[in-house]
């Protein structure tokens, strides 16, 4: 076997990294053993692919004129300060935190991106210990099929289009978006960005994306407006859950969870069952449906008082369950 592709690429990187001037293609072909003996066309193809390979792993290849004064011949170079990881001066406790961060992602692609990052930090001399500090263990998951594409397009600033369907839509519609950020809100993943059809920032839930996320322009072809705070924008775009208040009665010693989230507890108050003591609880009602479910799940230890719509719903459900006519 001739020199392996990795060997050829490594020698190319080293050559361009140590050179003080731009190196011409001819010179590269002459020096790097892997290019010897190839026909012109084969060499051109091989060299193009090699450049793409180096750029894909993040190596900054620069193209410039070999001689500044006579702009005739072009060559390549890798600037050391753009190539090398700067000295981050991490303290030992910070290194332990980095080790912890490595275990956060429960997503194959990003877990490996994190471990690639840690390999580089280890190479810079940090002993990223995977066993220290096993106390905090947040886990971040991303199971939505659209996540990988959204993440990549956001980072490369590529405009996208995708099918999107809200629960009320009979069929998906095509959306055109400049993705500014991928965010979580209430445990769900969203992409926030500029909606090119509606001409304003919008957010889209990734679980509602249908089909492929497709590039709708070139990478880097839009800019995120200066000073955009993705987290604040998400908060602004998140619909406010309408809430109201409700009142229920709970038997003394029961409804431990409901009491915990109550706005106010007063008692004892007269209840439907004179044998035991009851308290009055004022609670926030996010959904009448959910609160009626909460009342029923207490098996008669909680009754609804207000609003009347809640009381009616509780009576209706209990009637159905007991087999009685309402």
């Amino acid at each position, binding site marked *: 076997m001739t020199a392996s592709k990795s060997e050829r690429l490594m020698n190319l990187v080293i050559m361009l990294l140590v050179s003080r001037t731009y190196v011409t293609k001819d010179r590269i072909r002459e020096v790097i053993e892997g290019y010897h003996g190839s026909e012109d066309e084969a060499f051109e193809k091989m060299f193009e692919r090699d450049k793409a390979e180096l750029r894909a792993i993040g190596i900054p290849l620069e193209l410039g004129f070999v001689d500044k004064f006579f702009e005739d011949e072009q060559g390549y170079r890798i600037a050391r300060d753009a190539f090398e990881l700067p000295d981050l001066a991490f303290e030992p406790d910070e290194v332990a935190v980095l080790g912890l961060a490595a275990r956060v992602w429960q997503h194959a692609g990003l877990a490996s991106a994190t471990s*690639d990052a840690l390999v580089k930090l280890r190479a810079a001399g940090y002993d990223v210990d995977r066993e220290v500090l096993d*106390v905090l263990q947040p886990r971040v998951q991303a199971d939505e099929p659209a996540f990988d594409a959204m993440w990549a397009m956001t980072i490369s600033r590529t405009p996208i289009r995708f099918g999107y369907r809200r629960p009320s839509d009979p069929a998906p519609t095509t959306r055109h978006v400049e993705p500014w950020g991928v965010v979580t809100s209430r445990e769900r993943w969203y992409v926030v960005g500029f909606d090119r059809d509606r001409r304003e920032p919008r957010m889209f839930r990734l679980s509602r994306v249908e089909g492929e996320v497709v590039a709708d322009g070139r990478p880097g072809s839009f800019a995120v407006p200066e000073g955009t705070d993705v987290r604040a924008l998400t908060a602004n775009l998140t619909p406010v859950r309408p809430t109201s208040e409700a009142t229920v009665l709970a038997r003394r010693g029961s409804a431990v969870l409901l009491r915990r989230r109550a706005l106010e507890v007063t008692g004892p108050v007269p209840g439907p069952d004179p044998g035991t003591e009851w308290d009055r609880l004022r609670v926030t009602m996010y959904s009448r449906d959910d609160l009626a479910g909460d009342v029923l799940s207490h098996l008669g230890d909680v009754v609804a008082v207000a609003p009347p719509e809640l*009381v009616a719903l509780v009576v209706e459900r209990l009637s159905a369950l007991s087999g009685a006519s309402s």
Partner: protein
Amino acid sequence: MSGASTRDQLTRLLALAPYLQTRGGVPLHEVAADFGVSRDQMLKDLRVLYMCGLPGFGPAELIDINVEALVDDPDGIVRIDNADFLARPLRLGSNEAFALIVALRALLDSSTVASREVVERTLAKLEAATEAGSTPLVDVRIPAQRVTEQAIRGPIEQALKADRQLQISYLVPSRDEATDRVVDPIALLERDGRGYLDAWCHLADDRRLFRLDRVASVTVLDTPRAVPKLRPRDLAEGLFASGPDDLIARLRLSQEMRWFAEYYPVLTSVETSDGGLEVTLAVADEGWLLRLAMRFGHGLTVLDPALLGDRLSAVAAEALRLQRATA
């Protein structure tokens, strides 16, 4: 060699040279482990690196590695020389930097006051050194309700560090009661955005998983743990470990209740003619099933155990009487 594996190998080679130089000598198996590859693959990597060097490629220009000695001695120490032109690793790619930064932000959100400071420092250094810092494009937000858990987390972390027992007051919705128990903490865990305490419970005399949002209070005791520390459980396998005493319930779900099958670990699931599902579920506590059937009775019917149906209508009739007697 395929494109992806060349790329992986090249990435490793670029890191390998500075890695070996900053450390002096490292046992071969340790190098392999740090790079997440087998010992054989690491030997192959080292052989390639050994063929690389400065233009000219004579003995004075090539990177020097004791490859031959390592072939005979798999426990040998890897040594490198003449590679000072590759003294530092490649910069973090934007994908790597973002993945790490988002992970650190998640850590920050779930940190206690005491551990926040170090996470913030780490994040600041990383953001300053990468483009990713200029505009944060990806953000994970750990919900605000978990901030109330922080008061619970502090003492638990303290007990974990000091190997002490904890006294907790835990709310059990399936029995609607608060129970006081002494536990030996094993680990704090996280799953689907929720915090859990993995612990040995002396009340149950068994290992239990406690949801942090249901821990009403917590006190660190002076007593050391009584049960040797166990390995934290892996929540990736799911939260619900079914026990030998579980009963198997059969439920019919309406179309509106289909979400239930995604939310709870159902054992089997069959489509019904009206667009709903019929599922089976392992249930440890019949009281839990009764409360579930009351809560979702409009869309969830318990088929098995059949007797539960009778209990359900009796409980509902009594609850209805009380509801109607409420002024």
